[in-house]
């Protein structure tokens, strides 16, 4: 492969999130998972779960695998089966198992996957695509005030009527180019250029903490997501 240097998943050292300095400063506890140093909590999981349930919590999800695929519409269609999606549309996230296909333009898509799955996924599509895992930082914002939090720095219309679950909105977030996904009734994930991570952390913390929220680790995030699934079921 001629672009191995672009790959984040390696057998070598654990990858550092673009937020790592900000997370450490906020008191994160790290664990190594899937080749990444992941913030599992900020020392108070109960308070973190509480924030997700009553106000707003935000968690680093930069470790999500992101593979950019470009090609003619026909070329892209040829990859649908391998990724597990059928007829993805612009503006809507298509699911294929744990893979998610984000159709950005007729000739460009980003596939999100579990961090460890990217090399395998890439193999199934014949080595096509460019690994954008390290190019895009990601944050999940969850809680009853998640939408309010975004309204402080983002002009996108996130009302449920306009952006249903699995809706995808590429657009400006805190003056950066962003990709915003609605993943749950009160859960959004935004992907953006990783060099902005420290800046966006400041903006998000400023807005979210004024609304009573706090940063949360992967544990509290997973708990909140599982509760959300139960509520829906």
């Amino acid at each position, binding site marked *: 492969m001629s672009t191995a240097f672009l790959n984040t998943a390696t057998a070598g050292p654990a990858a550092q999130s673009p937020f790592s300095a900000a997370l450490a400063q906020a008191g994160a506890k790290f664990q190594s998972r899937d080749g*990444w140093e992941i913030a599992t909590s900020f020392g108070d999981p109960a308070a973190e779960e509480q924030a997700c349930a009553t106000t707003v919590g935000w968690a680093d999800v930069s470790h999500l695998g992101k593979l950019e695929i470009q*090609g003619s519409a026909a070329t892209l269609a040829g990859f649908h089966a391998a990724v597990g999606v059928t007829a993805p549309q612009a503006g809507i996230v298509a699911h294929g198992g744990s893979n998610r296909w984000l159709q950005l333009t007729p000739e460009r898509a980003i596939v999100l996957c579990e961090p460890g799955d990217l090399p395998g996924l890439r193999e199934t599509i014949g080595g096509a695509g460019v690994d954008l895992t390290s190019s895009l930082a990601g944050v999940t914002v969850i809680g009853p005030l998640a939408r309010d939090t975004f309204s402080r720095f983002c002009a996108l219309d996130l009302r449920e009527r306009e952006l249903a679950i699995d809706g995808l909105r590429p657009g400006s977030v805190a003056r950066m180019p962003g990709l915003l996904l609605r993943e749950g009734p009160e859960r959004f994930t935004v992907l953006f250029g990783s060099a902005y991570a420290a800046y966006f952390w400041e903006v998000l913390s400023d807005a979210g903490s004024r609304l009573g929220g706090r940063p949360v680790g992967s544990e509290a995030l997973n708990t909140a997501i599982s509760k959300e699934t139960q509520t829906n079921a």
Partner: protein
Amino acid sequence: MTRLDPQPAERIDRSKPVTFKFDGKDVPAFAGDTVASALIAADQKILQRSFKYHRPRGEIGGTAGGGNALVQIGARPSVRAAAEQVTNGLVVEHQNAWPSLDFDIMRATDKFGGPFTPVGFYYKTFIRPRSFWPLYEKVLRSAAGLGKLPKRQEEREWETEYRRRHCDVLVIGGGEAGLSAALQAAELGADVVLCEEDVEVGGARLADGGHEAVRALAAKAAAAGVEILTGAAALGYFDGLVPVWQGDTLHQVRARRHVAATGAIEQPLVFPDNDLPGIMLASGALRLAAVYGVAVGTDAVVAGVGDEALESALGLHAAGIKVHAVADLRADALERPAAQKLKEAGIEVLAGMTVVRASGNKALKSVKLAKIDGSGLAIAGSEREIACDLLGVSGGFVPASSLLLQAGAKATFDAPSGRFLAGALPENVHAAGAVAGDPADQAGLAGTIAGASAALALGFGSDADRAALSSAEAELKQAEHAPQAATPAYARDGRKGGKAFVDLDEDVTVKDVRRAADEGYDGIELSKRYTTVTMGPTQGRYSQLPAIRALADHTDVPVGDIGLTTARPPWTTVPLGALAGRPFEAAKRSALHSRHRDLGATVKWAGDWRRAYDYGDATAEALAVQDTAGIIDVSTLGKFVLSGPGAGELLDRLYPNVMSNLKPGRIRYGVLLSEMGRITDDGTVCRLDDDTFYITTTSAGAAGAERWFSWWLADWDVDARLTDVTQGLGAINLAGPNAREILSRVTDLDCSNEGFKYLDGKQAKIAGVDCLMLRIGFVGEVGYEIHCAAPHAGHVWDALTEAGADLGLRPFGLEPQRVLRLQKQHVLIGQDTDSEATPYNSGLSWMVKLDKPQDFIGRWALEYDADSEAADQLVGFTVPGGQVPTEGAVVAVDGVAAGQVTSSRHSPKLNKSIGMATVPTSLAKEGATITISDEGKTFDATVTLKAFYDPEGSVLRS
């Protein structure tokens, strides 16, 4: 205390006393009071001193939207007293008076000013001598001003929340029309926001007996889901985006439809001393009485030109204020029903009369009423002097149409009502109530129609709702305004003395407008700019008609033909702090940023990145690179992957040299050109395999290069794909005599000069991380630019640092890099080049391959350029005298500027002053002497065409 008996509509809670401070004294008030209502209730007649003449002034509007009195509240200057609710302990101070409101030294400018008073005085007087302006400015600023900015930055900081709100319908104005519109739209299913500038919704209905109904309407609208924002001023209409400022929050409301229900603003009358405290809009005095239980005075006279004045007089009487007389300029005023009611209440109505002078020292003591002739002059024998301490004036109405006009409506003059109405509205905008010319008794119906129209247009509602709208429209009566008297521009008695103001904000008098017209500023827009009429803090709310009338009268042009001045945002004054945004800069930082901080780097802006400028000792850092080794974080470089069968072709069409014949694993330097052959960016291209190229650009040029590449890709039919990986990769340049040894310690790759040649690009692991290494030499030493996924960049940096610890490796910043590259005369795009720079005048002619078959961007211009010699050349120079010229210093030929220094530094390695400069081509010869003129000093420099350091490049290739 001038608190009236409890009023049926009052919003104050007399069971909840509140105390605040005004100029150090305790002021009692009630919950629900505004600063203005509480101060007036406490008999504080003078609320501020005027802008220019320091005349005592009270409140003229009395409501939030209208408040004209400005006070200082804590660190906040120029807060509208009528828009601020009192709270316990609030600290309020007067503005623009010294030593006190009651006695202001600067009043002299009014009483004895003489030559200081005319309009244009400042423009004409303080321009000479020019150099004195800073002094003038200081004195003038402190003499004429509105409030004080806190001295300390921390006290000035303004904490504003920004909130984006999308909705279907935004209703601006919470009177009966606005509430009805909001309720109707919400009932049809629309997502509705309503904003009201006053502290409470209800508008005019609050003071005319309709308070219960309108408050019930508001409750119904809220229950229907309308988000009601009070104390919330719509600042402007920006292509459908309406910023609504509400205290500490700026709502940025994006609605699909807008309903303007902003009402109409009563206008003052113009007569001598029409600004005395105690003179108010009749509606303002009524509002204070009915809603706040405050009597502005105990003995009132009302003067007006239409029914509204009569109604206000009735209201004041009902509230318990003694009304001595009502002057109505209409000759047939006594026939009006309201006049009959006044008569029944024992109040004298003086038909055909108006006020021609007010008297009093610091507050109103009496008014003179009279019949007037066509010029506004009192008719002898008709005059009557009446003692009073409150004069309610009503000089007609101006619809508050500013937002409608900003949205694209054109104002048209409606002669019968004397109003400037917004004509045809843009498709997405509706209007209802007084702003649309609807009479008061039709406001509710008009609002319902506007709300239904907006919601139905957006697809809400059913056919039945559509039918209901049609019948409502049929029911709405055409506006029938009671006839108005032709209002004089300037009513006066025969006496001299007394200023007659058309604009209280800016202290503009009738005389000023006339003088301006005589000097040629005879259109309303010119008059506005010259006299500043309508440009003050109330945005012309109370001066629009008076200004137009004054100009119409003096220039003999009908009022309707004078027209309104252009409506511009903000419609309501807003602190700059509320617009400034949260204090965060959208900065990019490399994955290594925390390491630079830990190393004590001086961090500076470089484009939109934060970069390490140096680590405390730029000279030592530069020397280390040349003597041992250095590493620099170059993650900010633009980085792109270009792939596809057409990739080589695309590059050949965008670079002046040939890229398609580059062998995999090899690197070539290139510049990007505009159509005119001008250099826009530079960087390297490394071929990774047959179909894949890795491209770097400058840090600052990365975004532009991305747009440039993707634009041509969109326009041309080339089978290639671009991916921007700038932020995904860390990049570290390892350079210096020991660089090879250090690199070989952390990788299995053959790092020998044979195995890894200059301009080779190799992929291998460094400390377990997949890396691309480019052997290039921007800093002039053996160097390797190491690129890897950003999440591993820290690991690679640490591995290199460790491996080089015993070989003198040290990190170096941007500044030492600049010195090093200057020693090599490596052109820095944007520093050594400008928008006129081509390869031909920048020492890069070797790169242009006009013999290649492909057309490329810039080729045409370069072909034309190739026919003639460039006028200037970019060259290197040394300064024998050792001076380091300022970058930008002039290269002079025969005392005339003929070029400029683009870069200059002292080279620690060579111990020389070196630089680059553009010079006339005739001087671009090795050893030529150029003269540099730098901030008054002139010295010679010697042209050096080859690199100052390692001119043959043997070090680089070793």
